[in-house]
């Protein structure tokens, strides 16, 4: 069954859209990532113009994140104060990111910048996570008898910074400066790469802030909602590229996928979740790296400007 999308000006299969939304929703519920790094390329692939894909992807991320975060709230797995601090940084970063995006566009470097950003970030984050989780599993296997000692947090420079705040759900008493900076960094990248930024946020919260894995996903979703809602609104106002018809069907598939993902996520072990996410991120990075390195089958591409 075909459906004509009013803004994208293409006719696509309804079930294809539901399926795409479902896959991305599943990832969202499972890992706490918005799935923007997958939905945008997938939409390009089915013929949706890039501008519409980026903007509508952001809208879909809002829905799947809302769905996911409510479930996480019920599980008390959201650190609200931490989320708010990250959001403050995220909105500032998003503003800077939009400015940077426009600068790069003027210089004609945006395509390369986006592709390289994807490869470098996803590659680094993915490999680090993969190594870390493999090491954790290896350690757990070797010392199966001995109860793993709670990691004593090292009092480095992070703990000497001022404006400390108590984050009860995370069991942390740290300065708000690192979370704000992380939120800002993710916000900048999110605006340039057209994603929610969960895939950078999740490892940053685990490895840089030392937050426990069980609150990381909920808190990340909570933060992603605000940033992607802001992005959606900016796109709708500045370039009218949000297609609600497209979003609606992606969302319908996505919310179902997100629920299944959340249920599955509750059954899998934290290490397994991390390995799966790491593998996925590495796979996407490899695919994008190959696109840059291998001679393409089609040298030319056509881009239709929106009126």
């Amino acid at each position: 069954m075909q459906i004509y999308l009013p803004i994208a000006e293409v006719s696509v299969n309804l079930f294809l859209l539901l399926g795409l939304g479902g896959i991305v929703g599943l990832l969202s519920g499972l890992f706490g990532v918005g799935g923007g790094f997958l939905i945008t390329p997938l939409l390009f692939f089915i013929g949706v113009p890039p501008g519409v894909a980026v903007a509508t992807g952001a809208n879909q991320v809002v829905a799947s994140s809302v769905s996911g975060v409510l479930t996480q709230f019920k599980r008390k797995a959201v650190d609200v104060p931490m989320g708010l601090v990250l959001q403050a940084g995220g909105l500032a970063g998003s503003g800077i990111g939009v400015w940077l995006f426009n600068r790069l566009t003027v210089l004609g470097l945006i395509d390369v910048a986006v592709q390289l950003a994807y490869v470098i970030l996803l590659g680094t984050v993915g490999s680090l996570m993969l190594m870390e989780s493999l090491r954790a599993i290896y350690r757990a296997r070797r010392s199966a008898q001995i109860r793993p000692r709670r990691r004593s947090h090292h009092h480095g420079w992070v703990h000497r910074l001022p404006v400390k705040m108590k984050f009860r759900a995370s069991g942390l008493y740290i300065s708000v400066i690192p979370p704000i900076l992380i939120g800002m960094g993710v916000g900048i990248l999110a605006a340039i790469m057209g994603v929610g930024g969960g895939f950078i946020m999740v490892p940053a919260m685990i490895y840089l802030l030392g937050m426990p894995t069980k609150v990381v996903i909920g808190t990340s979703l909570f933060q992603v909602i605000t940033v992607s809602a802001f992005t959606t609104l900016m796109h709708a106002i500045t370039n009218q590229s949000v297609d609600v018809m497209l979003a609606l069907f992606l969302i319908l598939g996505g919310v179902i996928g997100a629920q299944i993902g959340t249920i599955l996520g509750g059954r899998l072990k934290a290490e397994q979740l991390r390995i799966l996410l790491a593998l996925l991120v590495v796979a996407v990075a490899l695919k994008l790296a190959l696109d840059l390195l291998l001679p393409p089958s089609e040298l030319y591409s056509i881009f239709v400007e929106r009126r």
Partner: protein
Amino acid sequence: MRGLALILALICAALPARAAMEEIVAGLSHDNIGITAAFNGSEVLIYGAVKRDAPEDTALPLAVIVTLEGPAQRVTIRQKSREYGIWINSSKVRVSGVPSYYSVATSGPLESVLSLKSDVTHRISVPLSMRAFEGPIEVEDARPYTAAMMRLREENGTFSVHEGAVHLVEDTLFRADFSLPANLVEGDYKTRIFLLRGGEVIDTKSVAIYVRRVGLERWLYMLAREHAPIYGVMALAIAVLAGWGASTLFRLIRN
């Protein structure tokens, strides 16, 4: 007397601008196409007849060519090349008015029914606008870019040539069927009908087809254009409601 008529006919054939003895009378199956949410392409039938004020002169073969052209769009054609070991879009050519859709139907093989000169004059096989480059051309030769655009458009069905798709009956009646694709762009579509004899154009007709969004599609499009902030808030509201609704629904199912 008969000799004189023959000479006259020959002159008419050779100088198409002067007193065309053969004229096109044409019609469309519908001149309005509404794009609804369930829009899945549309069939357009262009039909007509050749009107003559004298008996037909069959010395040169008669042919009909029908073209259908979508609204013009600004297009950037980019080429990838290897820079510092990676493949990136390195050069581009901008064309200001490429038709979103272009289809040519002929009553016979294009080379035999259309002379090169007529093609150049009337821009039948390739619309003129496809070569209207915009801004400073950064590349030495823009031809490979246009060729690539035509090839890519042919692959996705928005540019096509159908030889023999015009049915010409008794050198008088003709019909051409076009099936417009589902990814149709809104706007005014132009139909051109060419009557040719011996490869030269002796008469042309142009008819417009209006393609418009209707109903919900139109409402959403207008809202997005004219009231962008409201549209944006609506998009977010739908997203939040759907997310909340699904979450609540699943909780109810599980309990």
